[in-house]
């Protein structure tokens, strides 16, 4: 599986559509995309490894956007 496939695109745009529609303005499109890419690329990787990537992603996000 890879993020270029049609299914991933559908999945991403479905969630992103909700993000825009429901005014989750503080959640950026890039963050959502990066999270889903991590999940897809580490589909069957050990939980703690994926979790570390997710933690890094959010830590990095929060560190760079201190207002959040």
């Amino acid at each position, binding site marked *: *599986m*890879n993020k270029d*496939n049609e*299914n*991933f695109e*559908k*999945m991403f745009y*479905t*969630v992103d559509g*909700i*993000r825009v529609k*429901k005014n*989750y303005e*503080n*959640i950026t499109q890039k963050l*959502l995309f990066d*999270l*889903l890419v991590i*999940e*897809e690329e580490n*589909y*069957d*990787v*050990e939980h703690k490894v*994926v*979790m570390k990537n*997710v*933690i890094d992603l*959010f830590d990095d996000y*929060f560190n760079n956007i*201190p*207002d*959040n």
Partner: protein
Amino acid sequence: MLKVKSVRIYGFGPYIHQTLDFDDRNGVTIIWGDNGVGKTTFINALKFGFYGEIPNFGNEEKSIVNIVNQHNMDSGNYDVSVTIEFEIEDDDYSLTRYAKVKNNALKPEGLSDYDISLSLAKNSRVLAPQEAKSALNTIMPENTSRFFIFDGELLEEYTRLSENTQQSLKLKDSIEQILGLPILTKAKMHVDEYKKNVSNQLLDREKKSDKNKKIHDKISSLKEDLEDDEKEKEYYANELLEFENQFKEIAKERYKISDGAKLQEYDELKKSHEEIEQNISTLKSKIKELINEQWRGLILNRLITEKMRLKNITDKYEEDKSIFDSHKRTRDIYQISINKRACEVCQKKLNNEDIDLLNKKMSEIKSLDIPKENKEIYEKCKSSIMIIEKYEHNLSVTPETLKFYSNNLDNLIIQRSTIEIKMETLIKEIEDFDNQRNQNILLRDREKIVLENIVNAKESIETKNQKIKKHKEEITKLENKIKEDINDEELEIFKKKDKFLEDFSNLLDEGIDVFRSELKDRVEKDASDLFKKFSNQKEFVELKINENYGLDIVHKSGVIVPVKSSGFSHIVSLCLIGALHKNAPVQGPVFIDSPSGRLDEAHKNNLINILTEISNQVVLLLYHGELDEQNIRRNLGPSLLNEYNLEQEDAFDVRIIER
């Protein structure tokens, strides 16, 4: 798209060493084989290759031995391997699953005698074991195998999807996995886990903040006390400085007074004078007392004579008393001897004559008793002696003693005179003596007061120092308790983070619901499209997907028709598999053993027509006559890529021969 390029089977079932190369074009491959020749074993070899799955014939331990090729076993070769070459997009993979006999097992009897291992190379690079396992799980998750490699006769399990059994829920999970839904569900799970951590940190900080606030209040209070104490200490320090300056000033003033040294000398002489006066007075009293006692010395000789006389009387009495005591002891012995009629000393028995003798001696001794009045005289004499001795000492004062005291008195009087002369001289020498002396006394009194003030100030400073030290220690102790100081800004950031993650989790929650619903709609639509082509019953217009991805048939009237027919459950299941493949993030091959099941001829033909819509790579394992060969070739046309026969050399040697 995952496309299998070749399968190489070594020592597995009836396959001693067989390789099947697939056409790289999209289409259908058919493997023909009669019952019992090796179609199911081919499917099992694929499952072993991809998932390490070994068919269990009722004895799991023995299962591995049961699949080993009999000819190989006969020649002592018990190893098995399956190699599958496949490609995903532009990447080439080579997967080999080995079942090798352990070194120490000459003749393996079960799984414990085997090492099962996996080798996976991606674009000719061999992956490390853990990486290979992980990559393979990503490419072909085991729980989705039912959608790639399956037995047509087992398709009916899909009709149970509408039931809420454990099996159907497992199947539902597999369907959602092949559709890629776990990407979202796992994303939500991970966000929730991260949020839980942030929420815990927030809670922790809120608690700490509250606790810290109390500690901060206490520290502030202590710091105020400390400040007060330091101010007071400073006040006392200033006072001390002031008193010390005053002390220096007094010293200067005293120094300024002329003849200050003489004044001091005068004061010292005055002190000595007072002491000598005291001694003279004491000595005079003593001498007076001695003189008063002196007249008693006239009767001293007479008293001594009388004392001697009395002494003679008492001595005589004491001597008599001693003899009497001796007689009394003798008499007692006699009396005891008489009573016992035996001598108390030698224990000799006494006869009457002896007793008479003893009685006689006893009466003689009795006559020697001291008269009672002698004792009274003795005691009176003793008392008189004591009175005489008491006065005897006082009466023994000699003129020499008196002279000694008198000389001492003279010396003291001389000393006093000398001091008085010196004092007179000093008074004469000191100019304006009275005034200066008074001034000096005043300065000394002031000096004394200032010194007291200095001592008090020093004590106050020391007390404050101790209080300050105690306050500082308490402050340090409390500050250490605040391990991590939380400020309002940080707390606010954590609250925002928590809210942000809650929003994110809600977004994913809604995303999962919506995406699942969209997937179902798409699966339902694609399955319905396939169904319309597959089914000859034109009144059945579409399929309706239920909560668990089970499919029901919809009559043109809108009525839901339960799938009761085995043939139709087969059709519906194949439609579901086709729809799932179409909507799966990874599309793969479909290997179907005996796909026609209980289909009638018409639906068998329809099956042929929709094969290429189920997957880009379809491999059918058919028994001869299962499907009409002419129809297959005609209907599939160029989509029929290759046909193979499974040909038996003998029961344990099957070859895959291209037609």
